[in-house]
């Protein structure tokens, strides 16, 4: 470790790390710590203050306090404010990270999520204390079912991957209920990594089908693996190449033919909101990524919410307890019910409730018209970028895309040595987050660009301009070198990822001293 680059690690009030003021390292909370300092303040309770010894038997007591950190509130604020200045975010600029749908997160949702009537409700409060929450969840479920074209949904899964596993467990329960043991689940080679991982955890075997030359599922190859041992298939549509699987109806028919189920990975639902519905395409199970399509912010990697909607026949298997409308329409009451053949509970409580409240807000503000515009403008933006950039990069599948486009830096790399990764790093210092790189795996030197509908034409022009400039610069040796050494202007320069794995330092205490 190069510690002398942290000259003032204990300097609490020094805006050491604010990029506003240079490129110093921000000390950790532990380096800011000073014995005896504190920030906490707790309510005066008047409860008799028995000593610890009277409350906890010796065998269970810690020998010494757990050393967390000892900082003042002032230093705590300085530290985390400075850290926030070392972090790119949607609120700072365009974030065209393919597959992640980094759109603008409306501030109204933040305001909703802190309403005490939502945020301060205990999840185990009795039904008559939570009528508003139950109604909210039912309202969201109804909307999500309409949007996906399904019959019923569970809101419990905390993210997309949890939704996938839920879907696979539903498949499993469905076949088990029929006494039909099936082992295989088909996924295309372009699928997101969570799909195969979920298949394994669902107790199935992955059967991979290749994509064809047009970037869609190779239908012949698919037919060739379909048999009575196939529990189902997991697809995204548009797929991870941003392309619409035109043959989806035939695929659905063929899978249904052998008794299999179709699972829809909803990570790309943004592309088709209000235009076409998974249910109408023939899917039986659908998960939604509310943190993508419905703009509940990603929070640096979470929380999300991954509700799973299903067709009628699978509804009896949904996880419980489910929020349910009871009583008649004129005087609705809400309560919890558990479906007859429920696969069981998926979450400690009822899912990421405040994320769900944000998503409902988003749905209501947009409405049917607004949601359709979301899809249309997301697709418009992606196609505009695709066309504009097709002279700078390879376009492995040269046809209209949906909400994102996958380009390749393959020729660029061959000609100049500048890889997709270098393009990504150079773009960072042009004021944009980079696209997703090296995914999907089937495209060499992939750059997966998802502008989303909340970026303006002006932004797209600036983004395209920056990418074009990077490509143009790469033509000279100095330009190419600059790209491979980029970024230069960020709080840290290119980070040594290999070293992190080789010399693992997962905590401050693991640092070599």
């Amino acid at each position, binding site marked *: 470790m190069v510690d002398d680059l942290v000259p003032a690690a204990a300097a609490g009030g020094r805006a050491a790390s604010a990029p506003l003021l240079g490129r110093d390292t921000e000390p950790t909370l532990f380096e800011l710590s000073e014995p005896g300092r504190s920030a906490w303040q707790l*309510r005066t309770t008047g409860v008799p203050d028995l000593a610890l010894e009277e409350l906890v038997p010796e065998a269970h007591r810690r020998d010494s306090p757990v050393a967390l950190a000892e900082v003042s509130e002032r230093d705590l604020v300085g530290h985390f404010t400075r850290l926030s200045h070392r972090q790119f975010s949607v609120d700072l600029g365009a974030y065209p990270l393919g597959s992640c749908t980094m759109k603008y997160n409306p501030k109204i949702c933040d305001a909703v999520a802190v309403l005490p009537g*939502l945020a301060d409700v205990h999840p185990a409060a009795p039904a008559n204390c939570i009528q508003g929450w139950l109604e909210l969840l039912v309202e969201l479920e109804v909307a999500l079912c309409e949007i996906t074209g399904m019959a019923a949904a569970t809101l419990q899964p905390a993210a997309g991957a*949890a939704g996938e596993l839920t879907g696979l467990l539903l498949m499993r329960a469905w076949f088990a209920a029929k006494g039909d043991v099936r082992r295989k689940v088909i996924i295309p080679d372009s699928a997101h990594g969570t799909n195969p991982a979920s298949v394994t955890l669902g107790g199935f075997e992955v059967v991979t089908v290749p994509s064809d030359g047009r970037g869609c599922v190779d239908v012949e190859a698919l037919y060739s693996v379909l048999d009575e041992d196939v529990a189902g298939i997991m697809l995204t549509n548009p797929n991870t190449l941003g392309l619409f699987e035109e043959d989806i109806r035939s695929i659905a028919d063929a899978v249904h033919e052998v008794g299999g189920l179709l699972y829809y990975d909803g990570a790309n639902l943004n592309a088709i909101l209000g235009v076409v519905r998974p249910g109408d395409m023939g899917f039986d199970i659908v998960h939604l990524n509310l943190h993508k399509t419905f703009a509940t912010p990603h929070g640096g990697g979470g929380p999300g919410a991954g509700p799973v909607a299903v067709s009628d026949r699978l509804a009896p298997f949904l996880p419980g307890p489910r929020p349910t409308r009871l009583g008649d329409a004129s005087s609705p009451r809400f309560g919890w019910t558990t479906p007859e053949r429920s696969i069981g509970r998926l979450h400690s409580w009822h899912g990421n409730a405040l994320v769900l409240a944000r998503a409902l807000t988003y749905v209501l503000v947009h409405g049917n018209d607004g949601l359709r515009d979301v899809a249309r403008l997301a697709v418009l933006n992606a196609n505009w970028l695709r066309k504009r950039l097709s002279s700078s990069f390879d376009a492995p599948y040269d046809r209209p895309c949906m909400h994102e486009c996958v380009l390749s830096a393959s020729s660029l790399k061959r000609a100049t040595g500048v890889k997709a990764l270098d393009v990504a790093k150079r773009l960072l210092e042009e004021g944009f987050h980079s696209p997703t790189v090296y995914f999907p795996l089937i495209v060499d030197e992939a750059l997966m660009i998802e502008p989303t509908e909340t970026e303006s034409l002006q932004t797209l022009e600036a983004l395209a301009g920056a990418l074009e400039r990077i490509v143009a610069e790469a033509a000279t040796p100095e330009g190419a070198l600059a790209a491979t050494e980029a970024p230069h202007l960020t709080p840290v320069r290119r*980070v040594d990822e290999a070293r992190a794995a080789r010399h693992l330092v997962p905590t*401050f205490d693991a640092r070599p001293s």
Partner: protein
Amino acid sequence: MSGYTPHTDADVSSMLEFLGLSSLDELFSVVPEALRLAGGLDIPAGLPEPDVFAHMEDLASANRPCGRDLVCFAGAGAYDHEVPPVTRALASRSEFVTSYTPYQPEVAQGVLQAVFEFQTLVSRLSGLAVSNASLYDGAASLVEAVNLAVGATGRQDVWVSHGVNPSWRDVLATFAAGTGHRIHDIPLTAGSTDWAAMSFDDSDEPGAIVVAYPNYLGCLEDLGDARARCDRTGALLIVAFDPICAGILRSPGDWGADVVVGEGQALGMPLSFGGPYLGLFACTMDHVRRLPGRLVGETVDAEGRRAYVTTLRAREQDIRREKATSNVCTNQTLMAVTAAIQLGWLGTSGIAEVALRSARGTRYCRDALLKVPGVESLTTAPVLREFSLRLPLESEMAVERLADEGFLAGVALDPSYTQGHGDGLLVAVTERRTRAEIDAFVSAFEKAVR
């Protein structure tokens, strides 16, 4: 078009023209006509923000939040601890809220360093060397811990104390349907795990033993006994700990846990009707390559400057696909950042103080309630922040009556904790409960159980 999408009519026209299209509909020409939604979605047209906000306020006002009107004595995994304005202010900074998984570390040092600090704090609290960057919630952490243990030992039989939160055990059972793990229950006697009730033979030796500390009924379990059984059988010891109680309790790592899981809600998250919460997960260095989810490590940048990055990525689904240690992708990073802030605020003395004050309130409240005629304790082991009672009436009835008096009295216990009767109640007392509140609660309680 909404104020979130910037496209003017002129923009749309010029973009369509550039694409050689004449309408937005044409963008979807690849979608078979028959599949396309005719007439649009059957949901109302978009409403302006203030109308939607009013609707959400209506819904919110149909709830009874904890606070002045409903003083919280409920726990069972969701606790009413102090969340100061400073934690809320810092955790809601939009750079933390509106960023994605730190795939480009050069512009994500803020989240990465905060998570690195979170990992360090969880490691110190749990007493184990490694913590991941968070999982969905306590239940998810338990599921992953069991998966880790089964993978590490190659044994699919897992023994779980009945003192582990019942909804976590439900979740474990749900997921075991996929993995095929065999989950066995270890019963409680007077609120403590009855280790002697574990019985297995060579064919179903345990891959893991899971115990909670404190357990669901608030009791401090004998982790020494659990560790000894693991030593004898080669099982891993998984401890479901509580990060606040850890402020005064011997750490699970100190007791010999291999994996520690927990619910991190108490570290700065509001009750939130159950989510988003925070799955805590720590393990010994031996198991780091089986660690589920993201892990942040320290490294250097091209100029030798200290930097952070997600590491040991080869474990994860996007690289290892069907062989990944877990399928988790999106986790609860913002909650991990929140917990780092909250733990920074609490610090060494604060975490102990919160635990101690909770224990004092619990003692005071429990002593008083046990004096109420007809009310009995279900347990004998020492308790810390939560305790269970047997009531002379249905506990659901008691909870409703007390809600009318302004108290969320606790959580009704599953009959499995009360020999099949619905009269068990789980009561939690945090450092936020004042003596006046507890006294009023006890009075109301007396009336309600009469």
